[in-house]
């Protein structure tokens, strides 16, 4: 079982790779809409990327209002 820290780190790695931003510039508590400068369609891309990587289904209503990586990690962690 992954720890929440491990899950968060993997999310940060995936987000940095997907949106081609420096990994070092991303922190767990960042607002990913602002830090990555993404809109909701791109947020859905991230969601799909995370679902494929972690092998989970994450209904988008569960990420409604979620905008930081750490909280996103808790939602994924609950389905691992």
């Amino acid at each position, binding site marked *: 079982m992954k720890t929440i820290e491990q899950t968060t780190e993997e999310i940060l790695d995936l987000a940095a790779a997907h949106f081609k931003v420096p990994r070092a510039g991303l922190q767990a508590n960042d607002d990913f809409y602002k830090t990555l400068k993404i809109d*909701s369609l791109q*947020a*859905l*891309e991230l969601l*799909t*990327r995370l679902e*494929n990587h972690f092998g989970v*289904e994450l209904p*988008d209503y569960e990420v*409604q209002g979620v905008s930081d990586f750490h909280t996103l990690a808790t939602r994924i962690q609950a389905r691992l």
Partner: protein
Amino acid sequence: MNEYKGKSLSWRIADGVIELALDRAPANEIGVAMLEDLERFTGALPALESQASALILYSQQKAGFSAGADLRELYFLAQQMEMSSALKGVREFLERIHAVLNRLDTSPLTTIAAVHGVCFGGGFELALTCDLIVADKMARFCFPELRLGLIPGFGGIPRLKRDIGNAVVRDLLLTGRSINATKALSAGLASQVAAEGEALRLARATAAQVTKFDRVAAAAAKRFIKPLPASDLRNEIDIFCELFAQPAVMQGLRNFVENTGAHPYLP
């Protein structure tokens, strides 16, 4: 016309396969321009069908296959008129789009949607007219209409009911959630999942296989297994128009159109 390039799509035919490429920025929203081009395509279909075995639908827009109906156009057109006129316009649009999608649905060709990115609402309904859906790993399917106080209006529910289990239809419709390609495959919605960027290539390989078969036999098989749910499709238009008259719908459209934040596509 064996080749055509319009405002929102293009098509060409080669080696017995027609390729219809949607290409309207930002995400192939289906409004009047797309409808008119689709009508041109279905008008040209009889001549194309006589030379082909398969039809591939795909998108040239990076965002995905299609984000669905052009809600901005719908809102601004509806806002300029009385509700009775708006309703008449909506019904006319639905009648026209149904005619186009029913024609695609019942084409004797084997039809394949190569889907990447967003495949939402009306875009999902367009993909559902196809016999096969090849989904890129990054594809997402969704019926978000309930968020606006509406039901899907381009034939989505009757086609989903025909094609897959009712529990999945209810999940998609009543939660408005989006699902990924893996889920779509397990639900029986997609027939193949492609690696990123490979959906069109897989669709072409599938189409090449289809061209090996006798066209008359393939068309007969399709007629046998894929009846048009005509009665449900008619009912859908009536229900959609009934709901469209509710004040909550215009409010929902206004909220979507005026949303300048990052979240309009999330529930």
